């Protein structure tokens, strides 16, 4: 697919050298540039997983659209869920610049040949979960995504810039929702604490396996696709979140969490990586439901895309004959 044709005067080694020099100079790779097959494959995998996460990520919060406690909260939640769809579209668009096909990526998601973030396989049990997702899950996403705005692949970096601008709204609306609940009744405060208890550890898992068990990380960092290691980003998230939890008045469910005065970083307890592996490989609380709903969206709405195609074809023919 990426083999240069013979009429090019440079040979593959020279292309590779040029690619390496571009990366070394921290310049961006653009779609028509020569790139190693591994770079292309890694990007397609990462961008597709990211896109799938945005699309599947509409579901846990979407479940509360018809049960929002006020019109204000409903309007906010609608806008947020719509944003998630938009983020998925920006990312599929970036994946297509690498030669991937959007419909094919969706099929791979539905057939479970490609993954999405483990976090979206947990259920949203109360409206406090909507707030906690905005605060913790979108907060973790921001930690992950801000450095990706400088990713070496131009279209990915540009999509991330657009996404990051919108994530800030997501996080702030969540935190504001939680502040509102914390000013409410004891039962409402208990709901917030319960949601924090359930979402804290899965949020830490969002950064992926620890560095010594993350086989793709080193190469991705060498290629400038990733800019920081999983553990670095996780630490940054914990340090950011602890004072926010204090302000809110909730307890993060980790007895080992404490500030290390020597490093200035918070130390935290062991993450249950068995749970992570179980959930990412299909055995989480809501995996089957998420995929079933995505499949239904594709299949049940196929008639709409077919009708639009038929309409467009008819009108094009009419225009042509006029």
């Amino acid at each position, binding site marked *: 697919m*990426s083999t240069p044709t013979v009429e090019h005067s440079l040979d593959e080694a020279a292309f590779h050298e040029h690619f390496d020099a571009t990366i070394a100079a921290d310049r961006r790779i653009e779609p*028509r540039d*020569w790139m190693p097959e591994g770079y292309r494959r890694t990007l397609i995998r990462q961008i597709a997983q990211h896109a799938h996460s945005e699309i599947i990520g509409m579901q846990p919060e979407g479940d509360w659209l018809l049960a929002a406690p006020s019109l204000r909260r409903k309007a906010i939640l609608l806008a947020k869920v719509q944003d998630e769809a938009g983020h998925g579209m*920006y990312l599929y*668009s970036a994946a*297509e610049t690498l030669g991937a*096909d959007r419909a094919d990526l969706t099929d791979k998601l539905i057939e479970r040949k490609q993954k999405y973030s483990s976090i979206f396989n947990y259920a949203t049990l109360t409206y406090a979960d909507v707030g906690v997702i905005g605060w913790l899950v979108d907060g973790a996403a921001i930690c992950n995504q801000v450095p990706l705005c400088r990713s070496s692949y131009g279209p990915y970096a540009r999509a991330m810039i657009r996404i990051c601008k919108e994530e800030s709204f997501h996080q702030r609306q969540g935190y504001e929702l939680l502040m509102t609940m914390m000013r409410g009744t004891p039962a409402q405060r208990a709901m917030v604490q319960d949601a924090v208890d359930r979402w804290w550890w899965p949020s830490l898992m969002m950064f992926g396996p620890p560095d010594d068990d993350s086989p793709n990380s080193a190469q991705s960092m060498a290629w400038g696709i990733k800019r920081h290691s999983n553990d670095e980003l996780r630490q940054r998230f914990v340090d950011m979140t602890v004072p926010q939890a204090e302000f809110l008045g909730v307890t993060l469910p980790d007895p080992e969490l404490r500030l290390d005065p020597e490093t200035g970083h918070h130390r935290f307890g062991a993450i249950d990586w068995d749970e992570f592996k179980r959930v990412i490989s299909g055995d989480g609380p809501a995996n089957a439901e998420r995929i079933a709903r995505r499949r239904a969206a594709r299949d049940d709405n196929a008639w709409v895309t077919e009708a639009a*195609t038929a309409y467009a074809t008819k009108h094009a023919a009419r225009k042509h004959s006029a």
Partner: protein
Amino acid sequence: MSTDVTAEGGHGAVPTGPEVPVEATPAASRRDWPLYEVFVRGKRGINHVHVGSLHAADDEMAVHAARDLYTRRNEGVSIWVVQAADITASSPDEKDPMFAPSGDKVYRHPTFYEIPENVPHM
């Protein structure tokens, strides 16, 4: 002239430097909705700028989808959509004939001319 002159997904005619292109994978979406490139004018007084791409059944749907996808927060006052297949782009391996001639014409830049510093308003 390269045989491949179409823009690729999400990228329009962005100049891409001296690199040699890979062969484009045909974007044959099973659903046969063509790929559109989207350009948005952020506000009056500035150019339309490429923002991304999308699939739509026809031009009209492409404009509506572009509005929903790329201007949810007043990012634009005007949208252009164009089918990616209709864009003719310069190819990276044409770098020499296309862009090199401007490289040695330094006299086209104002900095080429030495003017004493005490000449006002220059």
